């Protein structure tokens, strides 16, 4: 599933915490590729993964993911 219509600020939140893709991936127990494809809007994460990402980044899921017009 491609990420048309779903935007995200994953890269910004990750950079704010000084985490690399690999470090974030380790924290949410996915591969680095998964983080990369989510950031680049290639892959739409499940609700569970979106919630885990938001929890690790210390923000609400709406602050990370949003619908684009």
């Amino acid at each position, binding site marked *: *599933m491609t990420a048309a219509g779903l935007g995200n600020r994953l890269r910004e939140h990750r950079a704010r915490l000084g985490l*690399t*893709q*690999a470090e974030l*991936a*380790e924290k949410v*127990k*996915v*591969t*680095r*590729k*998964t*983080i*990369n*494809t989510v950031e*680049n809007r*290639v*892959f739409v*994460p*499940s609700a569970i*993964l979106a919630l885990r990402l938001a929890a690790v980044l210390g923000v609400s899921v709406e602050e990370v993911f949003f619908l684009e017009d």
Partner: protein
Amino acid sequence: MVDTNMLVRDRNRLLTAMAGIFVVWQGGLMARDLFAMADFAGADRWVAIADMIDLAGGLAWLGATILLVVFMRRVKRAEAQNVINDELFRQIQAQAMRFGFKAMLATLVLALVLEAFVELEAEIVIRAFLIVAVAAPLGAFVVMSGNAGEDAE
């Protein structure tokens, strides 16, 4: 810390090797059957060559299977199954299976078309199906997985 990137990379390398080896192995067997049926001078020599290819392919497949078992133990020891089989993996796996199904349908159509012009041996057709059924999803998985998320940070 377990390097899951390395595990993913190794899995893709192993799957690439397995797809290639399977094509060589089963392709050798199919070529052997084709040459055995063919009626031309020197066919015996080609049968012998195909025999050697399928023997080498069979041995390589055995080796690849052993490597797969070793790899699975590595993953289990690292307790990294859930990480390397994450939801991106499952999505790519499903896409690769769908591609394999379409490739099988295409092979079926090709066989039906060919059947109108030449007499096809059931063994050859079944082997062709087998090759496509194994190699197409494996190859598709490796390509799709390789295309996803290349620019690491």
